[in-house]
C-alpha cells in the first residue's frame, strides 16, 4: 500500500500557545485512519493544517509526493531574505536615479524624497512578506516596476513646477517613454521568472486550500459548513467544481461540451445523493434539511470532488446511536469505493470498530498510535482519555 499522506514534525502555535507539537503520522491508501483525543486536543487544528486553512509553524505535510506545507530550511530562508534585501536596496536606489534620468534634477526634489519615503514604507512590508514566503509580495514587486513605469510615463514630459498651465507639457512623457519601454521587458522577464515552476520550488510558496482540494483531498467540517441558501443538488455540484472545466465563454454560449459536462455533473451529483440517501431531497434548499441529513450532504459534497483522501471532522457529532450506526456503514462504503478516509472523532466507540489505525492526540501531542486493539489497552491513552486511575473495560 502506498502512503498517501505523510505528516512530519508538524507544529502549529497561535500567538505563543502551541496547539500542535511535533506531530508525525501517515495514512496509507485505502485505510480508514482515526484521530481521537479529548476536546481541545488539537484535532481540528491538525485538519486545518492538512487542508491548508492554517499554515503550520513548522514541519512538513506531504500529500502523495506533493508538499502541501513545505518546510523552509534556515538556509533557504536566509537565501530568500538576502534576495529580498538586495532587491529592495536596488529598487530604493534605483527609483530616484531612474526618475532623475528623465526628470531634470529629480534626485534633489522634495517630491522625489517624499515619494521615496512613501515607497520605502511600502517596500518594507513587501520585504516582510517576502521573508514569510507570501506569494503576494512577489506580485508587489511586479507592481512596483509597473508603478515606476507609470510614473515615468506620467511625469515624463511635465515640468515638476506647480505651474502646469504655463509650461509646455506634453500629454505623454516623450522623454520617459523610451526608458519605460526599456524597463518593461526586464520587469516582465523578472516577474515571469517568479511565477515559473523552478522559482516556486526554490521559494516554496504555500498553497491554498483550493489547491489542496484539487490535488484530491476533500473535507467536512465539525460545525457544518454548507451553502445553506442553495439547493442540495447545487451544493453537491459545487463540490464537483474542480472536476469540471468550463469557464465563462463556454458557459455563456452553452457549448455542447459545457452542456455535457453539466449533465454529467448533475447525474453524478444525483448518484452521490442517492449514495448518501438524500436523493429525494435533491431540490430543496440545504437549510431545510435536518441535522443528520446536513452531515450526510456535507459528505456527499466532499465526495463530489472525487477525492483520494477524505477528511471527516467529527461526522457523528450530535447524532443519535441509530444515525451514527448508519454513518459508520456509509463510511465503510466510501472506503470500498477506494477513498482513503481520515476521521476525527472523540467518541472512541465509533472509532474502535471503524478505523484500521488510530492516532491519539492529547494536548497537542501525539501520545499513541496503533490498531484499535493496541489503543484500547494503551495505558497512556486510558489516562489521557478517561482521566487518571480508571481502567477501561477490555
Amino acid at each position: 500500500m502506498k502512503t498517501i499522506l505523510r505528516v512530519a514534525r508538524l507544529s502549529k502555535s497561535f500567538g505563543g500557545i502551541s496547539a500542535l507539537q511535533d506531530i508525525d503520522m501517515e495514512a496509507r491508501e485505502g485505510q480508514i485512519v482515526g484521530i481521537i483525543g479529548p476536546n481541545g486536543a488539537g484535532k481540528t487544528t491538525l485538519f486545518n493544517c492538512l487542508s491548508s486553512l492554517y499554515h503550520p509553524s513548522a514541519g512538513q505535510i506531504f500529500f502523495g509526493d506533493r508538499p502541501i506545507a513545505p518546510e523552509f530550511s534556515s538556509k533557504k530562508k536566509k537565501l530568500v531574505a538576502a534576495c529580498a534585501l538586495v532587491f529592495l536596496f536596488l529598487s530604493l536606489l534605483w527609483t530616484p536615479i531612474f526618475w532623475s534620468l528623465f526628470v531634470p534634477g529629480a534626485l534633489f526634489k522634495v517630491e522625489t524624497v517624499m515619494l521615496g519615503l512613501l515607497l520605502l514604507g511600502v517596500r518594507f512590508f513587501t520585504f516582510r512578506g517576502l521573508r514569510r514566503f507570501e506569494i503576494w509580495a512577489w506580485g508587489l514587486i511586479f507592481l512596483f516596476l509597473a508603478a515606476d513605469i507609470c510614473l515615468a510615463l506620467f511625469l515624463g514630459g511635465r515640468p515638476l513646477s506647480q505651474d502646469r498651465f504655463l509650461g509646455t507639457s506634453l500629454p505623454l512623457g516623450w522623454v520617459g517613454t523610451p526608458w519605460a519601454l526599456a524597463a518593461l521587458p526586464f520587469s516582465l522577464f523578472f516577474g515571469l521568472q517568479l511565477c515559473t515552476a523552478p522559482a516556486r520550488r526554490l521559494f516554496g510558496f504555500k498553497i491554498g486550500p483550493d489547491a489542496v482540494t484539487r490535488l484530491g483531498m476533500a473535507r467536512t467540517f465539525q460545525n457544518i459548513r454548507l451553502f445553506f441558501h442553495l439547493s442540495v443538488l447545487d451544493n453537491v455540484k459545487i463540490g464537483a467544481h474542480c472536476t469540471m472545466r468550463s469557464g465563462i465563454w463556454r458557459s455563456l454560449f452553452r457549448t455542447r461540451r459545457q452542456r455535457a459536462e453539466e449533465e454529467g455533473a448533475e447525474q453524478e451529483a444525483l448518484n452521490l445523493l442517492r449514495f448518501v440517501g438524500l436523493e429525494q431531497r435533491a431540490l430543496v434548499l440545504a437549510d431545510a434539511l435536518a441535522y443528520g441529513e446536513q452531515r450526510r450532504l456535507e459528505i456527499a459534497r466532499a465526495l463530489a470532488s472525487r477525492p483520494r483522501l477524505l477528511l471527516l471532522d467529527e461526522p457523528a457529532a450530535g447524532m443519535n446511536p441509530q444515525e451514527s450506526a448508519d454513518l459508520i456503514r456509509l463510511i465503510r462504503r466510501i472506503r470500498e469505493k477506494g477513498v482513503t478516509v481520515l476521521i476525527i472523532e472523540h467518541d472512541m466507540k465509533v472509532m474502535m470498530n471503524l478505523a484500521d489505525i488510530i492516532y491519539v492526540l492529547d494536548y497537542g501531542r501525539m501520545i499513541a498510535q496503533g490498531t484499535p486493539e493496541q489503543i484500547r489497552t494503551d495505558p497512556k491513552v486510558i489516562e489521557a482519555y478517561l482521566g487518571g486511575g480508571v481502567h477501561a473495560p477490555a
Partner: protein
Amino acid sequence: MKKGYLGFFVSLFLLAGTAWGDAIKIPVASPFTGQLASFGEGVKNGALLKGSEINASGGIRGRKVKIVLEDELCDPKEAATVATKLANDPAVSIVVGHLCSSATLAALPIYRAAKLPAISPASTNVSIGKMSPFYFRNVYKDDFQGLFLAKYAHFVKGYKKVAIFYEVNDYSMGLMLAFMKEAKKLGIKILGTEAYTADTTDFKPQLTKFKMMKPDAIFIPGYAPQGTLIVSQAVSLGIRNAGFFGADGLDDDLMLKNPDAEGLFVTTPFLPDKAGPRAAGFIRAYRKAYGKDPNWFAANSYDAVGLAAAAITAVGQDRVKIRDYLASINTREKAYEGVAGKTYFDKNGDCLKDAFVKEIRGGKWVSAQKQLRQ
C-alpha cells in the same frame, strides 16, 4: 401647486406637460436649491419680476405669461431630465436657462434635437456657443471676462505679480486660462496656480505657499462660498498686503459678511449705478418686490425673459421661427435694449457686452471708481 397629480403614474406623466391652461409658458431652468441656490435666487426673482410686468401690461398678444421654475440643482444629469421634460412639452417654445455651464452643456443636445431655442442668462463657458444653433446667451463669455480682469489688474490696479487660486470646475478654469493668456501679454507675472475642489474648506496649504511668493494680489476665479473662506483664511495666515479679486462668481452678498474681504473687487455684467436709465425702473421695482438691490443674475434673467417675450410677440410660438428671430438680432443697431445693456448675438449665439467692476468698501458693494471701457 402640482399636488393634484398625486395620483397615478400614467396620469401624472400625461398631465405633467399640459396642465397650465391658456397662458404662455416660459420655463426658467436654474438651481433654486443646492449649493448655488443663492445665484438661482437672483435668476428667479428677475424672471418673475419681468413676468409680472409683462402680465401687468397686458401680456403677450393678450395672453398671460407664466414663468415656470425648473430646478436642476446645477447637476448635469438633472439638467438633462429637465431639458427633456421641457423639450417634449409643446406648450414650451423657448427656455430661459441654464445657469451652470455644465448643466447647459448637458441640456444642449436635447434642445438641439427638439429644435427648442434657449437663452442662458448666466452660462459663461466658452465652449457652449458652438454647440448648438438653438442656443443663445445674454451674458459675456469667460474668455472676455478673464481678459478684462487681466487688463483691469494691469492698467488700473497696476499689479505686477499675481497668484491664482482656482476651483476645479469649468467656470473657474476657463477664467483662469483667459486671464493667464492676457496676463502674459501684458507682462503680469503669474507666480503660481493652485487648485481647490468645491467641498474643501481647508485652503491653508495652498495659501501658505502663496504667502511665501509674496504676490501683489490673489486672483480667485471661483464662487463666493469658497471665496469668502479663502479670503479669511489668507488673512488669518498673515497675508495682509495682497489684494484679492475675482470674477462674477464672487459677486454675492455672502462676501459682505466677511470683514476681511474689504477691498476685494470683482467683475460683473451689471451695476445698478452704472446701468442706463432703463435700469432705474427695474431697480426700483426690484427693491420694492424683494427689498434689496438686484444682482447681475437678476438683471440678466430679467432681460432674458424680456428677450423671450419679445421673440414670442414678434413671431408667435413656433420654435424655429423664434430661433430665427433671435439669430437675426445680430448687430448693435438691432440689439435688444435691456436693463443690463444692449444684447445682440454673433453667429454662435454669444453676445458681446460690457463688464463692470465693483468692490467692497465699508461692508458694501460699490462700483469701482475707475471703470474700464472696451
